[in-house]
C-alpha cells in the first residue's frame, strides 16, 4: 500500500525543519552541528529531529552520543513531486485557458485595446 503523505507534509510545514533538511542534504552530521546555525538548544533541535524521523525523512545512527543524522529522500520526493505535478497540471491548463479565451474574444468581438480604468479596489 502506498504510504500516506500526511506526516511528510506536516514535517515540512516548519521552516526550521526545512532548514535542517537542507543542511542534511549536504551530508550526514551530528545534532550539535545541526543546532549551531539555528541558535537553538540541543533539546529543541532534537524535537524537530524526532518529527522528521517519524515522517521517515531522516535516519539517525545508533551511537548514543554521536547519533549522526542522515537524509532519507523517498518521502520528500513523493511529497514535492506530487504537489509540483499537480501545480503544473493547473498552470498548464490555465495557460491553455488563457489562449482559448483570447481566441474566443478575437472571434466573437474585436475589442478595443484595454481602456485604462483607474484603480478601483
Amino acid at each position, binding site marked *: 500500500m502506498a504510504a500516506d503523505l500526511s506526516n511528510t507534509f506536516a514535517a515540512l510545514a516548519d521552516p526550521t525543519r526545512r532548514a535542517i533538511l*537542507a543542511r542534511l542534504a549536504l551530508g550526514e552530521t551530528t545534532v550539535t552541528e545541526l543546532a549551531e546555525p539555528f541558535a537553538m538548544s540541543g533539546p529543541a533541535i532534537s524535537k524537530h529531529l524526532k518529527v522528521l524521523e517519524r515522517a521517515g525523512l531522516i535516519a539517525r545512527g545508533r551511537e548514543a552520543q554521536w547519533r549522526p543524522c542522515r537524509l532519507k529522500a523517498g518521502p520528500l520526493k513523493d511529497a514535492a513531486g*506530487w504537489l509540483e505535478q499537480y501545480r*503544473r497540471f493547473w498552470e498548464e491548463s490555465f495557460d491553455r485557458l488563457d489562449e482559448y479565451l483570447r481566441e474566443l474574444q478575437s472571434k466573437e468581438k474585436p475589442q478595443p485595446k484595454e481602456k485604462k480604468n483607474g484603480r478601483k479596489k
Partner: protein
Amino acid sequence: MAARSSAAMQPAERELVITRVFDAPRELVWKAWTEPERMARWWGPRGFNTPVCELDVRPGGAIRIVMRGPDGAEHPMTGVFREIVKPERLVFFSAALDEEGKPLFEGTNTVTFSEQGGKTTLTMVARVIKSTPKAARNLDGMEIGWTQSLERLTEYLARA
C-alpha cells in the same frame, strides 16, 4: 501580454493556491469552466486532449473527464460539484483515477472568479484529501520540477 500567475504551496494544509488573471470578462471565464465543450478545449497540460468531458453543473452533479496524453495513455478523472454560485464561485470534489479505476488522489477544489476592468482574477485553492506517491507519476510526459525552499535540496537529491 502573458497572464500573471502565482502559486504557493502550503504543505501543512496540503493546499495548493494558484492565482491567475485572464484578459477576459468573468462571464466568459465562467462559461469556459461550466460548458463541457469549452472546458475540453483547455483542460489538461499542453499536448494532452480531452476526449471525454461531462459536467452536470449543479450541486451534487457529476463530473467525468478523460484526458489523453501525448503517449496515448488515458487519465480518467471523476468528480462532484459541491457549490455553484454563478459567476463567482465553483467548488468541486475531484479524484484522479489509475488504470484500474482506483483513486490516485482526491481533493476539493475551490475556484473563485472576480472581475476588474474587464479582466478576471481566478483563484484556485486545491485541498488534498488523500494522495498516494504513485500520483506523482500520474501525469506522464510532464517534466518534474521542484519548488521554493526545497529547490536546492532536491537538486542535490536528483543527483544523489
